[in-house]
């Protein structure tokens, strides 16, 4: 998933490189969007009694983000067969 991925042959042409970069970008945008969506569901009180995030919500968000990241790393390792560590 890294830009300078050692598994990518040196001879790939420009168009392919562009497509790869674009796909990686889309992947990261979607990762971020799903993370935002999921952690909002897990952490934020949806009765909306105030317009500020309180302390409990904020620390939940930090931990949720870290855990989501960790799960994403496990999934990436398993999908790629443990050969390379994605992201």
């Amino acid at each position, binding site marked *: 998933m890294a830009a300078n991925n050692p598994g990518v042959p040196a001879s790939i042409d420009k168009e392919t490189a562009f497509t790869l970069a674009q796909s990686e970008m889309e992947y990261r945008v979607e990762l*971020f*969007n799903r993370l*935002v969506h999921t*952690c*909002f569901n897990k952490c934020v009180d949806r009765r909306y009694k105030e*317009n500020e995030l309180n302390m409990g919500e904020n620390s939940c968000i930090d931990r949720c*983000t870290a855990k989501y990241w960790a799960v994403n790393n496990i999934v990436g390792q398993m999908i790629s067969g443990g050969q390379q560590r994605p992201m």
Partner: protein
Amino acid sequence: IENLQLRDSLRMYNSLTERCFNDCVESFTRKSLQKQEETCVTRCVEKYMKHSMRVGMRFAELSQGAATSD
């Protein structure tokens, strides 16, 4: 890249509308929004944007491989 960002912000706009509508609007006896539904939507959007920014900061830190303790 810029096009991706534009497309993405428009998608965020749509998902925010769907979420805040679902969380805040329950009654369909009128066509217009009730006062408390409007307040709810406003808070929902504000909280979501603050949440989104906070996740963005943490996400950037994790992307740079910042070491973190519990």
